[in-house]
């Protein structure tokens, strides 16, 4: 009975969503204010019913109701309660329901926070969001209901959650990514509403910007945590594989990054208007395309999700309507738009434009690399595979001009700049960046390859540029504290985001260049050496968890005869699925990670053990955290807060 209520609740949500996409849209078209006014309550209503549905799925999972197919396939009685909750998005049907929860919550949030928006725009934004909601709800109800029953023959025990997903990183990774994807649907809706209204002025850019920023922050966080999860859970120290599923999340991120820079130009200077709209459409389209790639089985991926051509066909049709429709609308409307601002070659406008070019080229590389094997085959040219080396090489080439630009970007003003002072500053920075990098790398390592040096120097260059800029801006005031206060939160966000990128570049470069690993076979008491550390294998002890058993290799790590830490590298056998899992033991540090994975048992009491020394690997994720924090910081900026305070006044004017 209860699962059926969950299903029915979703039916009601879809009915309300359907009304949400029809009435306000019609009202905006005919100028009927009463129809437009219905939008916010419909938006909140559909959200409530989706939440009820999701709560029911969580409830039946906690109650171990194995008559429901989804619960039987993704949970078990021995699963700890917190993993039972996360199992509600560990499978396809539940993941889509979680997406719906996010989608409807963002819709409701937009409805509640857009009081001061003109009604014609507000109704259209919510109408577009309602339409997207209907699409996803129809998909859930028709193709992938998590409330499907296994009656009359149901199992007494569930199949358990995939052990790979039983990890804290995996609990938050999908929700964060979905927050990002769904958040970009808000930017998309604003763009479509602006196109429908025919007013592509900077108002829509101003409104769209905080939503885009938050979505982008979540997306960054989701990708960062996904990479960290792969590193800590997959057991061989990798953190990015250029897998189609990872690419599916990277592409929207790249375009969203371009979008928020372009939105800034449109809001502040009234330029790149049509380009910004196109980016907003593209960013969300790539989220949908990513979902299609992942869920349709069109591309073979290590993330083996359940695939089904019917589902793929539905998503493709939805893609065709949403993306095809909006690009057609774009083609019809955008040729009327004129750019307003004027600017010289040496200006912030041009650097932002160049930033967009690089990011879009990077997106195209990822898109081509992901889809080319399939297109190649469909054209009858045979099977090819595009792997890690292709992406690595392309990105290594792209990052150089991109990072160079990033280093001087903060100094440039709008409209135009004078060359001589800028060139002096840039030369000084280049010299100091090269010097610092040389000191840093040659003092730590014997060999430094050209690429390692260049990439590290670029990271240093970006950081120095940011520091010098802060110094110059702050010392304008006599009082240092005043100088700090004078800078807007948006400014700090920009600095933070750029320094975050520097950390990512440095982390990726140094860990790729200087990671070392050793495979050893050891018996208790043996010592293995790697770099300056000694690893003493103490033996193996039995372990027992709530739903697994296994062995833990105990290793004492020593440096200069001093004990650094004791690590437990585990090998788990999960009871229900009889799956083996390697739980790596990691001693994390700011400058290096020590990473141990236990291998198989050999004869005569020997065990095989893999030891990795990974310098600066944490900088990547630190960079990711800084970048996402930057996204959230912008929203707290006074400009956006002030508007909510003056809501009433604005509303009257609007």
């Amino acid at each position: 009975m209860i699962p059926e209520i969950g299903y029915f609740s979703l039916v009601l949500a879809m009915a309300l969503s359907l009304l949400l996409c029809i009435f306000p849209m019609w009202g905006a078209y005919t100028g009927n204010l009463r129809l437009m006014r219905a939008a916010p309550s419909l938006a909140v209503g559909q959200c409530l019913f989706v939440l009820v549905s999701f709560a029911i799925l969580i409830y039946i999972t906690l109650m171990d109701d194995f008559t429901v197919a989804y619960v039987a396939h993704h949970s078990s009685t021995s699963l700890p309660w917190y993993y039972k909750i996360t199992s509600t998005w560990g499978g396809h049907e539940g993941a889509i329901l979680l997406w719906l929860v996010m989608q409807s919550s963002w819709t409701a949030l937009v409805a509640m926070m857009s009081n001061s928006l003109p009604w014609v725009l507000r109704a259209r934004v919510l109408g577009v969001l309602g339409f997207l909601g209907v699409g996803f709800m129809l998909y859930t109800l028709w193709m992938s209901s998590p409330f499907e029953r296994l009656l009359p023959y149901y199992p007494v025990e569930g199949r358990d959650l995939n052990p790979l997903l039983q990890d804290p990183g995996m609990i938050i990774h999908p929700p964060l990514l979905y927050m990002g994807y769904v958040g970009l649907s808000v930017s998309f809706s604003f763009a479509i509403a602006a196109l429908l209204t025919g007013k592509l002025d900077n108002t829509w850019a101003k409104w769209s910007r905080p939503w885009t920023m938050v979505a982008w922050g979540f997306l960054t966080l989701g990708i960062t945590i996904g990479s960290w999860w792969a590193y800590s859970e997959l057991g061989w120290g990798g953190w990015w594989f250029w897998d189609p599923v990872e690419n599916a999340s990277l592409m929207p991120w790249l375009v969203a990054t371009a979008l928020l820079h372009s939105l800034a130009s449109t809001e502040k200077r009234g330029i790149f208007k049509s380009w910004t709209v196109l980016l907003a459409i593209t960013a969300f389209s790539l989220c949908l395309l990513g979902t299609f790639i992942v869920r349709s089985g069109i591309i073979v991926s290590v993330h083996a999700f359940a695939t089904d051509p019917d589902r793929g066909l539905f998503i493709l049709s939805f893609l065709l309507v949403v993306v095809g429709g909006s690009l057609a609308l774009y083609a019809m409307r955008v040729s009327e738009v004129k750019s307003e601002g004027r600017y010289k070659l040496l200006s912030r406008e041009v650097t932002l434009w160049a930033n967009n070019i690089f990011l879009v080229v990077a997106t195209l590389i990822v898109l081509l690399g992901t889809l080319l094997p399939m297109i190649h085959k469909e054209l009858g040219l045979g099977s090819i595979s595009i792997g890690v080396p292709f992406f690595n090489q392309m990105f290594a080439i792209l990052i150089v001009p991109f990072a160079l630009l990033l280093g001087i970007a903060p100094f440039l003003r709008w409209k135009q700049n004078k060359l001589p002072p800028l060139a002096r500053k840039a030369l000084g920075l280049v010299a100091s960046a090269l010097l610092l990098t040389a000191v840093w790398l040659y003092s730590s390592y014997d060999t430094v390859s050209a690429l390692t040096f260049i990439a590290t120097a670029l990271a240093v260059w970006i950081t120095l540029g940011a520091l010098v800029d802060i110094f110059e801006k702050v010392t304008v005031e006599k009082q240092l504290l005043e100088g700090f206060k004078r800078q807007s939160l948006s400014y700090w966000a920009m600095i933070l985001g750029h320094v975050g990128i520097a950390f990512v570049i440095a982390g990726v470069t140094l860990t790729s260049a200087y990671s070392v690993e050793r495979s050893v076979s050891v018996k208790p008491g043996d010592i293995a050496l790697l770099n300056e550390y000694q690893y003493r294998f103490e033996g193996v002890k039995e372990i027992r968890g709530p739903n697994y058993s296994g062995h833990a290799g105990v290793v004492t790590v020593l440096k200069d005869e001093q004990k650094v830490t004791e690590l437990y590298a585990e090998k788990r056998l999960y009871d229900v699925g009889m799956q083996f899992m390697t739980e790596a033991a990691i001693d994390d540090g700011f400058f290096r990670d020590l990473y141990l994975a236990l291998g198989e048992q050999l004869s005569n009491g020997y065990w095989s053990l893999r030891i990795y020394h990974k310098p600066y690997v944490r900088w990547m994720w630190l960079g990711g955290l800084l970048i996402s924090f930057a996204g959230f910081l912008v929203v707290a900026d006074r400009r956006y807060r002030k508007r909510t305070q003056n809501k009433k006044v604005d509303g009257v004017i609007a």
Partner: protein
Amino acid sequence: MNKKFLALIPFLIFMLLCVFLYQGLFGNPRELQTGRIGQAMPSFTLPDLMDESKQWKNTDLLGDVYLLNVWGTWCPTCIAELGYLEQLREQGIRIIGLYYEQAYDPDFGDHFDITALREEVKTMLNRAGDPYQFNILDLERTLALDLGVSGAPETFLVNKEGKILLHHTGDINPRVWRAKFAPIIQELSE
């Protein structure tokens, strides 16, 4: 006019992409057009699944047309096709199993109990049907790798001279047999 056309470009690119995505949806991404067709069976020396003292070489298989069926007890589809394969055996088709063990990881191995596996295989073949003349155990997956095996079940059709004529991914059922295998076998026997 020019500007209007420019604005239309994203739409056109997307539509083209959709055509490919639609085709891709009905193509099988796992269907690999391997370069193995028409080439000789790679050389190997591997133990028998049931008796490791017995070693099989590629040269032992020459002289008769045979099917090499990649399978494992862990693979439900493989079990499902055993019944039909047994019927084929009764019709005189020579089928050799290439046993692909999933639980054993060549790079990062684990407890692997060959006796338990043999028990399991025996029970399974008794229950679901035994089409095999014998089974080759490819624990390190070297032969599977040489053949370009991407999963199980997969079946290779090999002629008397040891040349690979067909590489089929997925299960063999009457429909697949009639469409893909039977014509070639017909031709060979003429």
